[in-house]
Structures are given as structure tokens and as C-alpha cells.
């Protein structure tokens, strides 16, 4: 499949050269790439899910290594892996159901089923884990059957085929692939519409005559604020400019264009203004499993200021930004240092960097980090496309989207490159 390989290489190149900006775009492109990768990947007759998982892992590892800072890539790779597992599991349970075996069997049954020729070890393990796993809080609260929490494909006409043990293996392979691709399409759809889903909740959070503060620019925040405005809420927005890239200026422009009363302030004026603010609403780069947020630089300061004045600090994040890793994991690269030229004019300071004189080392160092880490205790509320959550609930939410097996994408099957 030279075609896919070149697609992968192209995407790798773009990631390496930092040409794709923004986690939503990255997430979407990653999902699309994996979709075409899976659709063109030949699966063997036996252990299809395992083979597919290995293949995705190999690609996934490359993708993650290409730009370790952009955690959305890893998130999507893990989501896809999870989808494959879930699909395989649902097919397996269907098959098992057809044989009259109970899915909710104990461990001994698992051992027995290991010898079953039609079922992969991975599928069995997944099935076991899935059955042992407690139902998610949401499903409990909403009183939905557990099976529905598993992505929808399980219901997609599996009954007719799955009833018989003598399922044609190749057709089952096609079925798995088909289901997986369906589910990935669903995922791409989710990523594309996450802004709207988050924005729908805007009216519940923004009230009349409130003052909202935000820093930098985030598409999610923009949509959120505009949605509230469209619902005839009248409020004011303070925009901290977000040095050194000053994306706050762009946000202010957009907000004014949509008819919102906007005030631009410097980042350093945030503390002075925070007492007048009713709520801080910001976007995030990634949300870690502990509820900590990797966010544009300067946000930790804003969060601390908000805490000091007991102003709610609300983080908007699409589900593709939920990262199953903890910030203390060694493979998590929390930050990226960008070019100092965003801070200083090279020409003006060129004489400070004349390595030809003195000891040969420059006395001037410029550090331009991209991100801040906001600890979970400073975040009052997360708003994702599934609703509002407390930071202590994030690990639960993440368990819905990812399998524990996939946390480290570098699998034993993966060849190092």
C-alpha cells in the first residue's frame, strides 16, 4: 500500500515541521489518516483485531513521535485502538451470544474460550475487561443499559450474521473493518461538531450582564461566547491579549464583529480586573487524566487570580483533547519552546548576542514557552461535548474513551524506528 504509506509520510512531515496548528485540526487529520490506513490495510484471517491493532500502533507510534507536544495525535490513535477493541468485542459477544454462552461468565470460562479458534485472545481479554468494568457514572445516572455506552456499531445489524458459529471468516473480517471505519467516521463527526456541542451549553453558564474574562484565542471559546450572544444574552468580555503571540487581539476582533462588548487588557492586568469578573472561560491545549490542563502560557496566573477572588474558572475542551496520560508520565512532553523572535527583535538585540566577544557565551537568554500547566484544583468546571464535569471526574470520563492497554502506544509488537 504505497499510497497510504506516502499519506502517512506526508502527515508525519507536516507534524515534524509543525505545520499543523491547533489540536482540532490535528485530531481530525489524524483520524482521517487512520481511517484510510485501516481501510487499505489487509487483515489476516485469524486474529484480525490483533493484527489491526498492531498495525495502528506502529503508525501511531510514528505519529506521536513526530510531534510529541501535540497530544491530540496520541489521543486519536488511542481512541482508534479503543474503537477496534470495542468493535471486536461486540462482534465476539454477538458470536458468543449466538452460541448460547453468557458474556458475563467468570474467569474459568475465559480460559476455556482461549482455545476457541474463532476468537482472538485480545478479544477475549477485552471482553473480560469490558464485563468486569463497572458501568460508567453517566450510564448509571441516565439509566441506560451498559451496552449502549459502547459505541453504537454493536447494534448495527450484527444479529443476523452473528447468530451462527459458522460465520464466514473473511466476511467477518470485512465486517470488523467496516464497523471500525463506521466508528471512526463517527469520531471524525464528533471532532468536527465538538464546538457546536460545547456551544449549546453556553446559555446554561453565561447569564445576563455578566463579565467574562478569557486569555488568548480559542475557537471553542469564540463559538461558546457567540452562542450565548445569539441566545440574546447580554454580557461583556474582557480579553487578555495573550503575549507573545497576541492572539487575544484576533479574538477581540472576531467578538466585536459578532456584536459583543469587548475590552482588551494586557496579560499583566488580569489580577487587577479579576474582581470585576463573574467567570473565566478559557480553551485548553489538552486535559490530562488527573484533570490538570495544558493551556496557553499565562493561564496558570489567570487561574490563580481567579481562585484568589473565588471566580469560577471554566475550561472548554472537546473530547479529543482528553488525554489518558497523567502529567507525571515521562513520555508526556508538556511544553514546547518557540522562537525568541516572538519576544524580541533580533536586529535590536543582535549586539547582545555577539558570541565573538567576552567568554563566547551570550548573557542574554530568551525563553518562550508555549504552554502552562494548570493544576486540577484550580479548575472549577470542565465543559466537554458531553456536558459539564468536575476535574476529579476526568479520569472516569477518560475511561469511557480509552482502553487501559493503549496508554502506552509503544507496544511490544512495535518495531523501533
Amino acid at each position, binding site marked *: 500500500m504505497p499510497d497510504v504509506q506516502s499519506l502517512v509520510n*506526508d502527515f508525519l512531515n507536516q507534524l515534524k*515541521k*509543525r505545520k499543523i496548528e491547533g489540536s482540532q485540526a490535528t485530531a481530525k487529520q489524524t483520524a482521517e489518516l487512520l481511517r484510510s490506513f485501516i481501510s487499505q490495510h489487509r487483515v489476516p484471517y485469524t486474529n484480525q483485531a490483533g493484527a489491526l491493532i498492531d498495525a495502528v500502533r506502529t503508525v501511531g507510534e510514528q505519529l506521536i513521535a513526530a510531534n510529541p507536544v501535540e497530544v491530540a495525535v496520541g489521543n486519536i490513535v488511542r481512541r482508534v485502538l479503543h474503537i477496534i477493541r470495542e468493535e471486536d468485542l461486540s462482534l465476539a459477544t454477538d458470536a458468543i451470544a449466538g452460541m448460547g454462552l453468557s458474556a458475563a461468565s467468570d474467569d474459568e470460562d475465559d480460559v476455556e474460550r482461549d482455545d476457541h479458534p474463532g476468537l482472538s485472545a485480545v478479544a477475549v481479554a477485552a471482553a473480560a475487561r469490558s464485563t468486569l468494568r463497572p458501568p460508567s457514572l453517566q450510564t448509571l445516572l441516565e439509566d441506560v443499559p451498559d451496552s449502549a455506552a459502547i459505541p453504537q456499531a454493536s447494534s448495527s445489524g450484527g444479529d443476523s450474521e452473528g447468530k451462527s458459529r459458522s460465520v464466514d471468516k473473511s466476511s467477518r473480517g470485512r465486517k470488523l473493518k467496516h464497523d471500525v471505519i463506521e466508528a471512526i467516521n463517527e469520531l471524525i463527526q464528533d471532532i468536527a461538531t465538538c464546538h457546536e456541542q460545547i456551544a449549546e451549553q453556553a446559555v446554561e453558564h453565561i447569564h445576563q450582564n455578566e463579565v467574562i474574562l478569557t486569555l488568548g484565542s480559542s475557537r471553542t471559546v469564540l463559538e461558546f461566547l457567540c452562542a450565548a450572544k445569539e441566545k440574546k444574552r447580554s454580557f461583556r468580555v474582557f480579553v487578555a491579549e495573550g503575549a507573545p503571540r497576541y492572539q487575544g487581539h484576533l479574538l477581540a476582533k472576531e467578538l466585536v464583529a459578532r456584536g459583543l462588548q469587548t475590552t482588551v487588557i494586557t496579560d499583566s492586568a488580569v489580577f487587577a480586573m479579576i474582581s470585576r469578573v463573574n467567570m473565566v472561560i478559557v480553551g485548553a491545549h489538552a486535559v490530562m487524566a488527573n484533570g490538570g490542563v495544558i493551556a496557553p502560557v499565562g493561564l496558570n496566573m489567570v487561574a490563580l487570580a481567579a481562585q484568589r477572588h473565588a471566580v469560577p474558572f471554566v475550561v472548554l475542551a472537546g473530547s479529543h483533547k482528553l488525554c489518558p496520560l497523567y502529567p507525571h508520565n515521562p513520555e508526556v*512532553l508538556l511544553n514546547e519552546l*518557540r522562537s525568541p*523572535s516572538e519576544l524580541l527583535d533580533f536586529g535590536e538585540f543582535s549586539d547582545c*548576542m555577539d558570541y*565573538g566577544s567576552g567568554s*563566547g557565551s551570550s548573557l542574554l537568554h530568551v525563553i518562550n514557552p508555549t504552554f502552562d500547566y494548570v493544576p486540577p484544583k484550580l479548575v472549577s468546571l470542565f465543559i466537554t461535548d458531553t456536558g459539564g464535569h468536575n476535574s476529579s471526574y476526568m479520569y472516569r470520563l477518560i475511561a469511557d474513551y480509552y482502553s487501559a492497554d493503549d496508554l502506552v502506544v509503544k507496544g511490544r509488537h512495535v518495531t523501533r524506528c
Partner: protein
Amino acid sequence: MGAPKKNAARVSEDPEELARVPLQAILLADSFTTKFRPITLERPKVLLPLVNVPMINYTLAWLESAGVEEVFIFCCSHSKQVIDYLEKSEWLSQPNLTVSMIESHNSVSAGDALRLIYERNVIHGDFVLISGDTVSNMSLTQALQEHKERRKKDNNAVMTMVIKRSKPNPTIHQSRLGTDELFLAIDPSTNQLLYYEEKADRSKGTVHLDKSLLVDNPSITLHHDKQDCYIDICSPEVLSLFTDNFDYQHLRRHFVKGLLVDDIMGYKIFVHEIHSSYAARVDNFRSYDTVSKDIIHRWTYPLVPDVKFFGNSAIKLERQGMYRASEISQSRSAVIGPFTVIGFGTKIGDNTKVLNSVIGERCTIGSNVHIEGSYIWDNVTIEDGCKLRHAIVCDGVTMKPGAVAEPGVILSFKVAIGQDFIVPPYSQVSLLQQPVEEDSDEELEYADSATAITSTVDNSHVEIASKVSETQSVSELGMGGVGYVWENCEGHEEEWKHSVAPIPENKIFEAIKLMEEEDDLEKTDGDHILPRPEDLKDDLDDDEDDDNADSLYFEKEVEATFLRAVHENIQEDHVILEINSLRLSYNKEAADCAGAIFYSIVKYALDIPHSSADSLCKNVQGVFAKWKKVLTSYLTGMDEQIEVILKFEEMCLESAKEFAPLFTTILSYMYDQDIIQEDAFLSWEDEKREADESDKNFVKQAEKFIQWLKEASEEDEEDEE
């Protein structure tokens, strides 16, 4: 390589072709200089590692990200190594970038390279001209757009040069990249480049601009703090210009200056200044150091070590700008300072200190080693107790225990430094012997003389050299040392300027002192901006000198004419005619003629043999009797007559002192002969009355005569009454 297709017709001028041509680039993988010797004898400059990545990768990565679709890499010296490297690399399989190589063995300059590319007929539109040692992260979009818009309006806008602000070092007059100070004159409204000078007259601190620049352009900005990035956006005409002017060699020295001076064709060069992005060229060891540090300080983002723009080496950026690749074994007691890069698989021993340095892959560094500001390439072994400060250490070098490399040292490939040997500052050590023949003609690396030989004989040469040196160089590089220490070809005075080591303090001190002296001189000279008074005076003197020379010439001519007339017995009228024409051609007054003729007559009289003052007087009378008419024809007014008297006085003082005692006699003779009127004598006396005492000598001598004249005139008047 194939024969150049000379007959191929140029098609780029077709209008439909201009509509959509892929953006092309010419990458010169040869700098045509010898500044990186001795390293470049064994490996081409573009493959030298810059922060552990061969330089050409920076250039190619930039071209790729800037949207260039087709690159022609021109390889000359060590072309085989470059081509081998590229064939193994990932650059030939890029989806958006076509890379093709053009090989040449006999090009000696950038000019030759471009002429060859022109013959190949591969460039069809605007192209980017860059050398393979340029690091940049600029976006080409705007510069390209500006270039194209200018081209639409004016077909003569052939080139856009990229410049960047960077202040030069005021004391030693060089940029932070170790190149000479650059002076640019730019038209601020159009960004047209009007003047380009790299080597300003340092001794005077002056820049000479053509006056016509100020006449033709309403405003000019003169820049001293700009750095030439050596990234040019060129129109296809540039190639044909190189072909037309077959003597153009250097891109800047010949081509740019040539176009700026040449106002017949009217080609124009423009500049594009970049502000937030970075661009610089590794031109010498100093810029190697500077650009490396700029990369480590991330000015070139995203072309920084921890972003994998090239290859698959994973490097992590840790605290304080410390870059570490994987699989490094580092002793717990080793200290690694900030802004240091350590490559894959390197081992670092106990108590070793590494500061501000770049260490390549698979190096072994022993215990108690001190490395500061140095560049250590791959597979280097540095044993216990070595010290390196501001040195470049190439692949495969071995430093035996206790060896020391002083600042500015270059250790070329596979050299070994003996135990406890101290390599003196700025010395260059190579396995190859220094080539004896040095082209005195500029710093061009003539391929046929040096590079071609070394590239082919390379390997065998190395072996021989190592064998020879093992026996010989025990004394030269200490126990177990291998290699030759090169004589510095740049001249010892200047080596510190372009070396990797920072400029020693005493040199800066000297430079400051020198500058202060210059300042003092300038102060005594007066205002610096206006022409100095002495210059003005010089000018005046010049004018006078000119006049003097002219008069002298005129007098000589007149004398010659007169002598000829005397010897050939030419008629007086003819002599007058001739002198008249001389007078016209030299633009002289009648008085000058009178003076000159008088001078000739008296001189002639003097030349006639005479025994005493009396006979001399007789001679004069004789000559005057014969040639009186010639003289009198010019003595129409008082001024001329006074001029004659003054002339005579001058002669008596200087050229013909024999006449001094006869002064009065001859004057009275001339009065008798009606050559000079008495009024002239009187006004001469009047004029002289105010003069110095010394000048009055002859007036006193003529006192009696004048007294007599006065009385005579009074008598006359009385008579009339």
C-alpha cells in the same frame, strides 16, 4: 556528466510559460572559498555538521517548507560525497520537492556554476539562489510576491536580496557572523538597492557614494546594521547575465556591484528585509559558532535540534536549553551546562564539565575533561584530563590523556593529539599536508588545482599521510600524535577574527585604542561630515598647481617659439601670429604673453656668450633692437608694461641673477626705446611701496631712475605751461 546542451533554446521568455511555473531553486553545494580548510579538504562544507545535522539539511528543509518545488543542487568540490549523501538521504523521495543534482568538476566560482546551469536550460522562471550553508526559517511568500509585482511593472528588476538587521561589532568592524561590515544604500520608497560595499575604507572611516545617486533619488537611506542573508530571488535573466559577462565570478563582488555600477542596461536589484524570521549563512568559523548558538537558542525555530525536521534522531530539550539525545551514558558527577547539545550514544565520564558545547554521536569522553564552547563531531575519543576551549574537533579524532586544545584550534578528521600535548591557539591540524600552491588570486578554490585532486586521491592520501606522520610527527603533536600542523595561510594578524574562539580581550583593547586614536585624528581634522578643511585646501592647491603648471608650459612654448624664430629668422609678424595662437590655446591674457616674450628675449640675451656685465647689456640691447616689435605688439596697456617690469624683477631674483646689477640700466634702456612708458614705472613704484622691505630691493635700486623720470615729467609739464 553529460555534455552541456548549448543549442538548447531558451523558452522562459514565453508569456504563457510565466503563467504557472513551479518555484525553482538553485542550491550551490560549494562555497568556492577555502575558509573551512583544512576540514574541507576531506569533506565538502555543506556536509559539515551544524549542531549535529549536516548543513545542507537546514537549507533543504527550509526550501521545502518555503514552498520550493524543484531544487537543483550544484555540486563541484567533493561532488561525489555530496551526491552519495543525498542519494542515501530522504530528500530524493520528498512528495513536494524534486531534488536533482548538477555535477561539475571544473567550476571555480559561483559565476561558473550559474553559467553551467544556464547551459543546461533547466530554469524556467523566477528562482531562489542560495548556497548550501544557509540556515533560515523565513517565509518566502511575501518576498516572492514583492519580486513578482516589481517584475510586472519593470522587467529590469532582476533580483531581490534578503537582508536582516544585525548590528556589527563597533570595535573590530565586523558583523557577528565574522564577515566584514556591510554598507548598503537603499531607496526607502522602492527598496531598490543602490550601493553595496563590504569592505569599507576602514582607515578613514569613510564611504564613497556616487554623487549621481543623490541626484537621481529623492531619498537614500544608508545602512550599516544590515546583514546580507545570501538568499536571492532571481529572475531567469540573472543566469544569462552571468553568461554575457563571462568574467563575473563572485555573486556579490562582481555580479551585484557590476549591476549597480552599470547604468546602460538599467538592471535593478531590490532588497527585502526580514524582521521576525531568521536567516544567516555559515561563511567562516566565526559564523559557524554564531549560527550554531542561534540554533541552540532557538532563533531558527522550527529548525532546532528537538524538532525532527530531519532524520529520526530524537533529542529532548531539557532545563536551561540542554539538548540530550537518547542512550547517553553520563556519569553522575559529570556537569553538563546550559545550552549544550549531546548526541546519540555518547559516553561522558566522571567529573567532566561540558559547557556551551555541541557533542556529536557516539563520542567517548573520559573523566576530568573540561570542554567549553567547543564543537565535537561524531566518534571522537577524548581521554581523561583533556581540556578543550573553543575548538572544533572533527570526526574520529583522538585526544590522548592530558592533551589540551587552546582557543581557536581546528582538529581535522582522524587526527590524534599526543599525551599532554598542548595544541597552540588558532592552529589547524590535519592528516593532510598543507597544499603548497596557494592561489594568490582571491580565495577561490580552483577545483582543478586543489579539490579535484584531493577528492580522488583522498583515501590513499590519508593512509600515506598517517603512515608518514606516525614516524615523523612524534615531535610535532606529542607522543602518539598523528597529523600535521598547518601554517596559517590567512596571516597571523587576522586569524582571531574568523576563528571559533571569541575575540581575545587584548585584541578588543587594541582595537578600541586604535579607534580612539582615529577619533583623536578626526577631532584635529575638524568636522567629519563636511569635507575637512585640509581637503578643501588641497583642492585649492591643486587648482593653483594646475594654473602654475599651465603658465610654465605656456612660457616654455613661447620661449621655444621665440628661439626658433631667432634661429630660423622668421618674420616678426609670423612670430606674433604663432604666439597669438598659443595665447588662445592656453587661454592667457596679453600680459602673460608680454611677460613670456620678455622672459624669452632676456633669456636669449643671457644665453648669448658674454664676458662682463657691459657686454651682457650690449647683448640685451642688440636683441631688443631686433625683436622689439614682437614685445611691443603686446604692450598695449599699462598692465602689460607693469607685468613686464614685475617679470624682470622676478627674473633678477631667481632665474637670471646676472641681471640684478643691470636692473636700472636695462629699465632705462627700455624707457629710451619706448617699450615701457614712464607711467608704468611710476605705478610699479606705487605698487611696491606697500610691499615688504625685502621686495623693495629693486625699487631702491631704481630709485634714482624713477626720481629722474618724475623730474623729467615735471619739466615736461612746466615746458608745456
